[in-house]
């Protein structure tokens, strides 16, 4: 089987602890005078299947964008693989699947294969032609997400769930060590969601990929992930999902500022 996770050659180990891939230290962010995030402390360890949950407007996407270096924190610092985010250069280690709605224009004339291949470009850099190895990786990524037979189709002709899979394949094509997904199941039907979470579990368990999932769907997420971050402008919980479940009512009540009835989702 292909080992998609193929780390970059490491320069000197700077931070000591190799297993911390992403770390936020006392990160705050202000948007229009209002504190959107305050004093966030966060560590993402290799192998985590982490859910970041919180209500709409809780700053989840802001946090994600800061972890990805797309937004600069007001206070505090973000470290990626031990390097401060400004100095970090090994961007292909990070795979990112943004919210679908803002991700692309469905009329874009691109086939599934072309879209997935684009995900390899970070590895290839500015120059370099498509070679046999690239083609193999793209084909393998398509197979991994079960979209091989759609390779020649226009991306806009697929269903929401299928497009989501293609974007995961695109992220995998860069051979990342961590995969970030922002609200990935919005607009995806229930059956496809089930397949989608199984795929993420497979990537996490069998391929050792670290997965970070941002979602407002608390019920589903807590059934799937092994670690959880509860966020509503500040952290209300960060740890093993078991620890969350033990005090879930209390944590959610604090996070929302009022008692919350959990909707239980059952999986087969």
């Amino acid at each position: 089987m292909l080992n998609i996770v193929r780390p970059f050659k490491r320069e000197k180990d700077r931070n000591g602890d190799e297993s911390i891939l992403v770390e936020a230290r006392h990160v705050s962010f202000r948007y229009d005078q209002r504190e959107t995030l305050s004093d966030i402390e966060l560590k993402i360890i290799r192998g985590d299947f982490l859910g970041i949950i919180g209500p709409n407007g809780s700053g989840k996407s802001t946090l994600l964008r800061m972890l990805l270096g797309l937004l600069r924190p007001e206070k505090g610092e973000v470290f990626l693989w031990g390097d401060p985010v400004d100095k970090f250069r090994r961007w292909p280690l990070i795979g990112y699947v943004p919210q679908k709605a803002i991700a692309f224009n469905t009329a874009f004339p691109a086939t599934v294969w072309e879209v997935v291949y684009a995900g390899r470009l970070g590895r290839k850099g500015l120059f370099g032609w498509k070679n046999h190895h690239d083609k193999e990786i793209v084909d393998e990524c398509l197979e991994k997400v079960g979209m091989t037979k759609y390779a020649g189709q226009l991306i806009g002709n697929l269903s929401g769930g299928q497009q989501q899979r293609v974007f995961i394949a695109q992220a995998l094509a860069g051979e990342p060590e961590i995969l970030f997904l922002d609200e990935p199941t919005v607009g995806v039907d229930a059956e496809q969601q089930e397949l989608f979470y199984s795929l993420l579990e497979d990537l996490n368990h069998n391929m050792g990929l670290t997965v970070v999932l941002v979602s407002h769907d608390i019920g589903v997420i807590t059934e799937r992930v092994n670690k959880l971050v509860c966020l509503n402008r500040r952290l209300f919980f960060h740890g093993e999902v078991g620890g969350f479940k033990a005090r879930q009512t209390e944590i959610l009540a604090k996070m929302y500022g009022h008692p919350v009835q959990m909707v239980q989702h059952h999986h087969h």
Partner: protein
Amino acid sequence: MFGFTEMFQHDFMVRAFLAGLMVAVICPSIGLFLVLRRLSLIGDTISHISLAGVAGGMLWGVYPPLMALTFSLIAVLGLEKLRRSYQNYAEISTAVFLSGGVALAVILLSVKKSASSDIISYLFGSIIAVNRQDLVILSAVLAIVLIVIGSLYHRFFYISFSEEKAQLSGLPVYGLNLVLMVLAALVVASSMRIVGILLVSSMLVLPVAASLQIARSFREAFWLAQAYALTSVTAGLLASYFLDLAPGGSIVLLAAFLLVSTILVKKAWLRLRPLRAKDRLSAKELAKIQ
């Protein structure tokens, strides 16, 4: 036969065809990326800045296309900067530069006073006007476009598809944008001689618009746009020669005609084609709906 051989005995027609075919290759190659990045109007802006350049060239006795190129290169650098400060209203920057270019052109022309017939050949394009120097410049631009697009094709694809993802993957998005803008300036300045300043931007957009109607992949969109452009340039130049029409106008009208025909044929095709097997709902899917 029908005057074709006679036509190519005129040196100016040979030059016009050479120039036209090069224009047909370079315009949609850049145009495709501009259209997909929602920058269709950038061609208009650059061409209006070029107008100021042409006027300046005439005034100061410099080869006008060269002056046009200088002006538009300066402008695209400014444009990219302004576009960054109005990220959500990218079209503001194009509007500002477009009107600024026209205003400057009008001022320069009013200082020069006697350039009216010359400027008209630049505005509307001319077959007779294409000279050896224009051809040399066009070939150089053609070579640059082919080399740059040839080597960065997939990178431009990625920034057009998702600028954010491209940036996150570590590609130098700002630099790539700038390269694309500079190429656009080169293409406009070198193409305007034959198609005309007022119409050059339509060569960036119309063949691409037609190709997007039917392309089934990005690669296909790229090649189809060139096929559309080559067809309209060839037919347009023939029409211009035999019917004595302005070349820019006939080329662009033909491109527009091809676009409309493509849309109509596509509509008719979608309506008339028999339902293909894979489009039919399977019994299982039907059962699910009911």
